[in-house]
């Protein structure tokens, strides 16, 4: 294929997973590395940004008036080192595809977020984390090397420990287009999870349980009922576990017969149009009550499929449409250990405000990774979805931002769609290093996104 093959391109409007703030861009779909290079070379005055499967909640993979490079056609798994436990793949490969390929070989992706439908490039760009952060760190900790197409048209091999790697890990795609990556994998004996579930009656109970016993589990997460008030404020269901060893499977079961089979199920997609307001305080309150009550007070060693344990929402394609045309915002922040009081205050404020959030998740982060704009730091992280149409929500979240920043915490850029730009430098102390490196690497500002414009990254 000649270097000048022009990739598919078409104008269209783009939003993040939260479906807020649509903007129009030239959607370019490179099918080869050469086409990606051509797309970057030709992307014009308003620049370009790579996009994977569009699971960033806000505007990280939008570029108004410029080019958006849909990387999902670059989706080859090049090589799996079955003995050594590494995989070399294109950046457009989804974690879902990797699981399909790797699980039968006895390997698992090192870190997965709440959905399998993210690409490897997006996972590096957002430096995603999973339920195993306290043990395994974030995604880029497991990247052995990556290839980056930079603004000058060169393809650089980038290794951990270099400034370019640390700027790219969590750099929201602004250092260049990731073309391939080599990942270190997690060995597993089965495609099932052994899961312990327990309930916590309130926030203090929950935090005490997590602090005391988190180290015993590879994967750990708590779902919080943020509509519960009074003494039940912060009541939660803890779900924790690890990959089930082969001898944990019942003898003569179907699972024992094919322990590494990757099974998933999908329901019909959510209709394209649903009225807003389906998720009101009443409906979400009802859901939360049922969800809390139906969780066992305590259960040990229950076997679950990977899809059920990690990605329950992936079973409902386009679940984001449930929020209606107005879309939703996801708010995720982290505050460090020793700042538990700030966390308690914020949870109390959210409960008092009665935000209808049915996806509120609390987890403890372990050691941070070196990405300059990487989100996780050791401490507590809370994530919640809220309908964007809730009156006064913008001002309320601004107040929470202040609490978070005062506590030395930060919000997650892959989920942000509304942060006040003035707070960014306080939340990300290496922001200036990031800006300096970008100015040197990309003086013409080829790589830019709506997120970058909004927050002056």
């Amino acid at each position, binding site marked *: 294929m000649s270097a000048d093959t022009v990739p598919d391109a078409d104008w269209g409007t783009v939003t993040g997973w939260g479906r*807020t703030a649509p903007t*129009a861009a030239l959607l370019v779909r490179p099918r080869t590395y050469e086409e990606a290079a051509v797309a970057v070379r030709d992307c014009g005055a308003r620049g370009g940004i790579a996009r994977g499967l569009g699971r960033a909640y806000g505007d990280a993979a939008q570029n108004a008036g*410029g080019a958006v490079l849909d990387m999902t056609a670059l989706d080859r798994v090049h090589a799996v080192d079955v003995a050594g436990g590494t995989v070399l793949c294109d950046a457009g490969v989804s974690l879902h595809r990797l699981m399909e390929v790797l699980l039968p070989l006895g390997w698992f992706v090192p870190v997965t977020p709440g959905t399998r439908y993210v690409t490897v490039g997006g996972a590096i760009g957002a430096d995603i984390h999973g339920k195993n952060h306290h043990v395994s760190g974030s995604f880029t900790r497991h990247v052995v090397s990556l290839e980056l197409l930079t603004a000058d048209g060169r393809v650089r091999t980038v290794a951990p420990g270099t400034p370019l790697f640390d700027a790219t890990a969590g750099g929201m795609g602004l250092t260049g287009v990731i073309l391939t990556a080599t990942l270190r994998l997690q060995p597993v004996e089965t495609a099932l999870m052994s899961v312990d579930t327990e309930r916590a009656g309130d926030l203090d109970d929950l935090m005490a349980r997590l602090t005391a016993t988190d180290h015993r589990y590879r994967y750990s997460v708590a779902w919080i009922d943020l509509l519960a008030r009074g003494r039940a404020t912060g009541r939660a269901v803890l779900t924790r576990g690890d990959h089930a060893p082969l001898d944990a499977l019942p003898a003569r079961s179907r699972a024992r017969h094919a322990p590494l089979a990757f099974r998933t199920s999908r329901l019909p997609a959510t209709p394209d149009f649903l009225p807003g307001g389906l998720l009101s305080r009443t409906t979400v309150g009802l859901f939360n009550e049922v969800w809390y009550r139906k969780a066992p007070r305590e259960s040990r060693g229950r076997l679950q499929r990977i899809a059920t344990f990690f990605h329950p929402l992936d079973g409902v394609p386009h679940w984001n449409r449930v929020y209606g045309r107005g879309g939703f*915002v996801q708010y995720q922040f982290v505050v460090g250990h020793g700042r538990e009081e700030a966390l308690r205050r914020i949870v109390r404020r959210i409960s008092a405000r009665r935000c209808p959030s049915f996806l509120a998740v609390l987890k403890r982060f372990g050691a941070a990774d070196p990405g300059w704009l990487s989100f996780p730091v050791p401490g507590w992280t809370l994530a919640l979805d809220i309908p*964007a149409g809730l009156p006064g929500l*913008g001002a309320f979240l601004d107040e929470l931002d202040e609490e978070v920043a005062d506590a030395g915490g930060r919000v997650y850029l892959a989920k942000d*769609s509304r942060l*006040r730009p003035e707070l960014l430098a306080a939340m990300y102390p290496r922001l200036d290093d990031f800006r300096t490196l970008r100015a040197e690497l990309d003086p013409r500002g080829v790589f830019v996104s709506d997120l970058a414009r909004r927050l002056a990254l």
Partner: protein
Amino acid sequence: MKDAFGLPQSLLVLGGTSEIALATVRRLVARRTRTVWLAGRPSPALDAAAGQLRGLGAEVRTVAFDALDPEGHEAALGKVFAEGDIDLVLLAFGILGDQAHDEREPLNAVRVAQTNYTGAVSAGLVAARSLQAQGHGSLVVLSSVAGERARRANFIYGSSKAGLDTFAQGLGDALHGTGVHVMVVRPGFVRSRMTEGMAEAPLATTPEAVATAIELGLRRRSETVWVPGALRVVMSAVRHLPRAVFRRLPV
């Protein structure tokens, strides 16, 4: 860029001394807006408005703009867009005229029409092109309930707003899918300089209320906003009244 709630970071106000516009800008500066361009005929009032907004912490610049000089619109707006993205253009210029007087002086009536309609067609199209090129942004057009149905008392003004309203609706449809959002705002009787000394109509409102409605409309990505909202129903009824009945109403 606008945030998830449709709040702009940069604004261009066409008609920079309009009370409704300034009430809206004050509200948006209290949220996310940091950069404001006030476009209007150079005057102490324009400078005073800029100074007041600077006091609220915004970076404010003025640019010479005359609705009656469509030839100059490309240059004036081009200068603004050359300096950076504009997230929201507020088309807020307009004059009420003096109906009784203007009926006797057709050239005065023409001036109302040229300001409110012709000037808006020109400025609206120029702004729309720039917004389309940047792939995002809102164009908020201040129309009026007066454009919904001709009234004996102000049909010259009303007809100019009717033209503006229809133009803005069509422009909104033309820009659908381009990332640019056009919102038509139809206030009723607004207590302001423009209506000073006039008998107040029912459901009278204030510039601040219009500003609140604009912010809500931006969040909802509305195409039409009535202020107050009850006017939507009232005007729907009024629109269908037989002429012979409407003519006799004391409105």
